[in-house]
């Protein structure tokens, strides 16, 4: 059976332009080095001859009669007085010169050897790959260039040397391009395949230019400045040089000037032609503009990051987009984005006038384009009539145009609240890097969004900028709203959990609101609850004639109806709460009965409660919950206030003494270990040398010391301490960080080992040679609060640097890995039947993921969460999980 293969490009062939072909395709022979005359008209047979195409609207091309947008442009040509070398073929010219005989033009190999090579090339039965062909060509070249006496005509050849950039020498004697061309003309067509040329499309002498193609004016347009001044393209400048020198060379040659002058001019022509192709040829000073800027010639147009390929073909720019700095706004929904009024006036949505929107659009046009100092009111910037002509709306003509408006007109309407836009932050590493938001036009100059949305974009507000794209068609808006809206991307396909959630102060605030169920005075409670979007308040309780709200009741307000869940919070069993119950969060019938709300309940990517709400009530309800949650948190924390300082890590004198004791004890223990080691009292652990055993024991001792200091610090730092609240609730930092500030920083390591590199037998000259004690190997017994001594500081810096280097190396490496993976998979698609297909409709997977499961809708890697279903259907008694 024949396995079908889809269409593909089989072959690409590059050929050389012959002088005849250059003349044949030429529309004009350019002989004048000038562009325009004093009246601004292009000079006949000049560089801007209208036969080479038109760039000014209204004019017609002399060759094809087309106008600006119809005429593709036509080449012209320059007849060179003397031939010059094409810089792009220097290597090829050199290799042909060395491998052919200068007398008879044959490849300098004996007939039988040539035959042998021909056999290999012509072996059509198993078609040669391009690489194999290239290999044979270079083999021929290296074989033939060794030969001195030509096996065909027995001529004694001399060695040719390339004097960069463009001069060839034979035994010190200069070979002129003319001579090279004569030699190349002698090469037989039959020999060309062994040189790597196809005689049907290329001859070696065509690598030496005798006729010079002049690109169409479209390729090098004249720019007219506002002042009316004309400025020519760099290529045109270069062509002027070429023609000028070419003319002088011809005159001198025809007058029979001295050989020296002709040679100088010839070299100059070679220089101009070379820099016309590539202005960065090594060994050639770049041609410069009068201002000193080097000219951008052909190679520079294509090459590099700013070249045609990477900048214009691989990367394109779009309209209807904006970019500015971002900042936070907790009062926006996670689905919204705040757009500055200034941007909203520029960004437009194109609407076609129909019977249904006629009146609305008429009103919009009447609003005009609006003024910056006015309060924002959407208007219209441009109107397109049915015939395609454009009217710019100004304050003056707004009313007039509104009256004339007809069905079928296109209105470019300014942004209004509720428009759907795409919002993006680079690097766009996953699908959540570009999500759809609803617009809310706001004053000032930044894009704003809810803090919970920082996580999917990986954004912060230290100067980050983001891009916004306005959708232009109904289909695009509908698709974006269904597939790309923020709330539709709640669950990440990476781990199947909510990627958005409460962060930092949200967690701190709600933890403080629910930890030990505090009493909140009536007025304060009402103020805080005014932040959220609910229509009821909890029942206040009365103590000593004063009314209070309970914190947990206030939190319960934002829960959807029917929440029943019990799970372990961050405090767990080791709660600092004497009763030890704060770690179990129990919600029955949407009432928070027990526990402190913390990171495990509402935090991003681990919030159990958030996950529950999303799965049970859907994305819309989830978004509402998170919106209210961020507002409530903002209310609580701004009413109570919350701050921290270094004195949060103050510990009493007795604690300080204890910590010092722990440090000293550890150091002494290490010394004891080393002494035992020196006396041979330590036994080897399995799989380790004696030194390794000692190292691991020392490391263990020192890490125990740090743990101990952590315990002491935790003991003295209570829940009345801001930093402890943050650490315990999971808002930021952990207890170890606090212990490092208050107690002992601990061992500084490099590649998981104690610091050991540096001078001979010691890390720093401050220690004795051979000292392997705690301090000599990077143990830091000071705290961040006290400060480090110089050696400690140094070790700390080395450890810190390792972290930085690690991150730099890891991100670049994994980034490139991911890029390659994406490039390999980017055009796979999931068909309607759920098959994964490539662009040729070949099957990659018969069912997506071979199980057809959407990872963002799976449960911890399983397709269905059976326990949850059992619990929901049969009541919690039957729930499988504890």
């Amino acid at each position, binding site marked *: *059976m024949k*396995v*079908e*293969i889809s269409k593909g490009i089989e072959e690409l062939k590059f050929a050389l332009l012959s002088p005849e072909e250059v003349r044949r395709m030429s529309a004009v022979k350019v002989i004048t080095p000038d562009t325009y005359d004093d009246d601004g008209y292009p000079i006949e047979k000049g560089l801007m001859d209208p036969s080479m195409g038109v760039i000014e609207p209204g004019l017609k091309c002399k060759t094809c009669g087309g106008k600006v947008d119809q005429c593709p442009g036509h080449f012209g040509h320059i007849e060179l007085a003397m031939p010059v070398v094409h810089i792009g073929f220097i290597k090829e010219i050199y290799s042909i010169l060395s491998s052919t005989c200068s007398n008879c033009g044959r490849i300098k190999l004996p007939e039988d050897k040539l035959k042998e090579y021909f056999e290999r090339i012509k072996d059509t039965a198993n078609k040669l790959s391009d690489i194999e062909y290239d290999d044979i060509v270079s083999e021929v070249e290296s074989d033939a260039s060794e030969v001195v006496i030509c096996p065909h005509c027995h001529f004694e050849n001399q060695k040719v040397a390339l004097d960069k950039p463009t001069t060839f020498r034979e035994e010190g004697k200069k070979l002129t391009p003319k001579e090279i061309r004569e030699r190349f003309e002698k090469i037989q067509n039959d020999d060309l395949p062994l040189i790597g040329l196809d005689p049907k499309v290329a001859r070696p002498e065509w690598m030496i230019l005798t006729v010079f193609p002049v690109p169409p004016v479209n390729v090098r347009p004249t720019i007219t400045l506002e002042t009316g001044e004309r400025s020519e393209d760099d290529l045109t400048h270069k062509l002027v040089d070429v023609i000028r020198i070419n003319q002088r060379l011809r005159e001198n040659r025809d007058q029979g000037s001295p050989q020296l002058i002709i040679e100088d001019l010839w070299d100059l022509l070679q220089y101009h032609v070379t820099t016309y192709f590539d202005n960065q040829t090594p060994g050639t000073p770049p041609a410069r503009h009068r201002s000193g800027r080097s000219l951008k010639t052909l190679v520079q147009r294509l090459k590099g990051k700013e070249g045609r390929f990477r900048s214009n073909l691989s990367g394109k720019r779009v309209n209807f987009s904006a970019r500015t700095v971002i900042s936070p706004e907790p009062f926006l929904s996670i689905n919204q984005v705040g757009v500055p009024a200034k941007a909203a006036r520029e960004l437009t949505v194109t609407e076609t006038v129909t019977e249904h929107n006629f009146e609305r659009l008429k009103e919009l046009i009447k609003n005009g384009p609006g003024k910056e100092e006015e309060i924002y009111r959407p208007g219209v910037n441009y109107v397109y009539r049915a015939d395609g002509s454009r009217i710019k709306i100004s304050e003056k003509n707004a009313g007039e145009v509104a009256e004339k408006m007809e069905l079928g007109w296109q209105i470019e309407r300014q942004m209004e609240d509720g428009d759907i836009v795409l919002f993006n932050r680079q690097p766009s590493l996953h699908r959540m890097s570009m999500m759809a938001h609803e617009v809310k036009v706001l004053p000032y100059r930044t894009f704003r969004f809810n803090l919970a949305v920082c996580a999917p974009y990986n954004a912060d507000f230290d100067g980050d900028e983001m891009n916004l794209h306005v959708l232009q068609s109904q289909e695009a808006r509908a698709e974006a709203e269904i597939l790309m809206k923020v709330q539709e991307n709640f669950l990440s396909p990476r781990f199947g959990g909510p990627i958005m959630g409460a962060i930092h102060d949200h967690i701190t605030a709600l933890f403080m609101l629910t930890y030990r169920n505090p009493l909140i005075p009536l007025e304060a409670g009402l103020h805080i609850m005014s932040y959220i979007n609910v229509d009821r308040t909890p029942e206040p309780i009365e103590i000593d004639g004063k009314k209070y709200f309970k914190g947990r009741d206030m939190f319960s307000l934002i829960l959807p109806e029917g929440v029943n869940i019990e799970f372990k919070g961050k405090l767990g069993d080791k709660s600092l709460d004497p009763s030890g119950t704060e770690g179990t969060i129990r919600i029955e019938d949407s009432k928070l009965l027990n526990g402190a709300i913390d990171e495990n309940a509402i935090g991003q990517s681990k919030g159990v409660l958030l996950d529950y709400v999303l799965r049970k009530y859907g994305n819309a309800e989830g978004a509402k919950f998170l919106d209210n949650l961020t507002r409530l948190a903002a209310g609580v924390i701004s009413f109570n206030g919350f701050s921290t300082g270094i004195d949060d890590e103050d510990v009493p004198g007795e604690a300080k003494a204890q910590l010092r004791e722990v440090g000293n004890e550890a150091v002494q223990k290490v010394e004891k270990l080393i002494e035992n080691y020196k006396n041979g009292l330590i036994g080897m652990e399995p799989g380790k040398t004696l030194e390794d055993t000692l190292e691991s024991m020392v490391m263990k001792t020192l890490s125990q010391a740090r743990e101990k200091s952590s315990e002491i610090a935790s003991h003295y730092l209570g829940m009345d301490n801001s930093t402890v609240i943050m650490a315990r609730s999971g808002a930021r930092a952990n207890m170890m960080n606090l212990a490092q500030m208050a107690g002992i920083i601990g061992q500084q390591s490099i590649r998981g080992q104690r610091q050991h590199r540096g001078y001979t037998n010691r890390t720093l000259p401050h220690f004795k040679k051979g000292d392997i004690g705690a301090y000599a190997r990077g143990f830091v017994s000071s705290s961040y609060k006290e400060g480090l001594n110089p050696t400690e500081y140094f070790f700390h810096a080395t450890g810190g640097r390792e972290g930085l280097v690690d991150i730099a190396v890891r991100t670049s490496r994994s980034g490139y890995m991911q890029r390659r993976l994406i490039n390999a998979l980017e055009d796979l698609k999931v068909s309607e*039947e759920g*098959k994964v*297909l490539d662009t040729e*409709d*070949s*099957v*990659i997977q*018969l*069912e997506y993921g*071979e*199980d*057809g*499961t959407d990872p963002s809708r*799976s449960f911890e*890697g*399983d*397709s269905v969460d059976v326990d949850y279903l059992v619990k929901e259907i049969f009541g919690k008694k039957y729930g499988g999980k504890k």
Partner: protein
Amino acid sequence: MHEMVPEHWLVSVKEEEKILKSLGVTKGQLPKIRKSDPVVKALEKVEGEISPGRIIEIVRKSRTRGIAKIYRTVIGE
């Protein structure tokens, strides 16, 4: 055979059409497997010569799906 190598079965010529129809694909669309593939060589010892164009069924174990059946078309070399 090694436990990490999933089960490979040769699909009989009679069944080929039925399977392709149920999958809604043509033979050419299926992923390929070389005749020189060690598994195909091993399978040839049991089934005799396997000519290019035959279909091989691969049965993989899957945590989420139990078993997943995949089909590949044998190609030359």
